[in-house]
């Protein structure tokens, strides 16, 4: 089924108490697409991403991954193995060496033999330019380095899709480039990615589609060119005029 989207979201709602954060979001992502989600703070874009792998449980709506609805009682763990996630605050495991951070999940979850997992991990660390630090502990690394390791850690599970939740927002400006470069490399390899970011340069250059969210809904979506050069909605125009 080449035309089936890898991910489909149908009418997703999420409330935290009285706060209605997502108000009916629907979208489809095709294999190989790089979807960039932009929007003001509090627009619900991170919440949307966190609902996709059920770090937040949606209040209502449906998420269909690889043709199957996600159900926390049955297939959630399998789904999470196929959906790598990169966090704003890296969330590396500080008590484990970099290499161990990358091999842990393949070892425990995929039951990959230690040696195989290590070889694969070193290859991935090399890919993100962190092979030299394989035997360091995360707190010894800079933010940019930690985030690159976090990307390698997510890739080690050989996921079908990668989620990036503001991966450069916690970084010093001079380190943003090194992380975006790695992400760009992944995009060029044809990986399916969904990226929540404030990096408009990245969205414009790497995104195959850009989604603009505001107040819990998708206001507008299109190719980077359509959205950045020729936004149709007033809210999109206002947002872009503030940040560009």
């Amino acid at each position: 089924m080449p035309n089936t989207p890898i991910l489909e979201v149908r009418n997703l709602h999420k409330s935290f108490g009285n706060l209605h954060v997502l108000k009916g979001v629907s979208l489809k992502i095709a294999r190989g697409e790089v979807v960039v989600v932009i929007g003001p703070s509090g627009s619900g874009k991170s919440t949307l991403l966190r609902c996709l792998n059920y770090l937040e449980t949606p209040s209502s709506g449906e998420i269909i991954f690889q043709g199957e609805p996600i159900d926390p009682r049955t297939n959630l763990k399998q789904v999470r193995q196929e959906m790598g996630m990169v966090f704003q605050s890296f969330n590396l495991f500080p008590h484990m060496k970099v290499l161990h951070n990358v091999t842990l999940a393949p070892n425990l979850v995929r039951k990959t033999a230690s040696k195989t997992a290590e070889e694969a991990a070193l290859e991935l660390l090399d890919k993100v330019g962190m092979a030299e630090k394989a035997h360091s502990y995360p707190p010894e690394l800079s933010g940019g380095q930690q985030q690159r390791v976090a990307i390698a850690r997510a890739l080690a599970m050989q996921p079908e899709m990668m989620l990036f939740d503001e991966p450069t927002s916690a970084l010093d400006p001079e380190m943003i480039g090194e992380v975006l470069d790695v992400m760009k490399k992944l995009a060029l390899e044809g990986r399916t990615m969904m990226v929540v970011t404030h990096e408009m340069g990245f969205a414009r250059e790497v995104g195959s589609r850009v989604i603009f969210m505001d107040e819990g809904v998708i206001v507008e979506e299109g190719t980077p060119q359509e959205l950045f050069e020729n936004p149709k909605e007033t809210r999109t125009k206002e947002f872009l005029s503030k940040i560009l």
Partner: protein
Amino acid sequence: MEFRWDLVWSSMPTLLSGAKLTVQLTSIAVFFGIIIGTFAGIARLSKGPLRFLAAAYIDVIRGTPLLVQAFIIFYGIPGLIHRPIPAYLAGVLSLSINSGAYVGEIVRSGIQSVDKGQAEAALSLGMSNYQTMRHIILPQAFRRIVPPLGNEFIALLKDSSLVSVIALEELVRKGQIIIGRTFRPFEVWLAVAMIYFVMTFTVSRLVNYVEKRMNVNA
């Protein structure tokens, strides 16, 4: 009346044999206390009905004196089950159950001190709740709770003196026995205090050492 150092020294062998029992009781109780406390701490943070059971255990034990708990186990329960509980077992039981409640609170706070992002990262990789707890949360939590656990060990070392009331010849009971023979309370209690201090001081140094070694990474 002059102070008799010779009595302090001559009581030592007997007192040290009591101290041996004190250390034994305390070590066993801390061991089981950590096991019980880990389960209680995790259960308190769980979502199931176990949460209420753990909370009740912790509240009741912390809200009643160890002395009374020891009395209930040694004098009360045997009446219920129609057979005696040996003093040693009763001592270990009351100290372990008591320690478990305090350790439970320590473990709970340790788990809560680990950033939420750690669990999220582990879960997002497809790890189970158990794997996340076992490999990610607990190792980090335990590093942080070494100091309060050390304090608990020291507190228990001292509180174990209370089980002297159920005929266990630990350090305090040995002291009482010697006083019964010699009528020299000052010398003997001083000797007892010295031994307690040496024990607690050693433990606190040990805890400091472990803490420093663990802080090398993370």
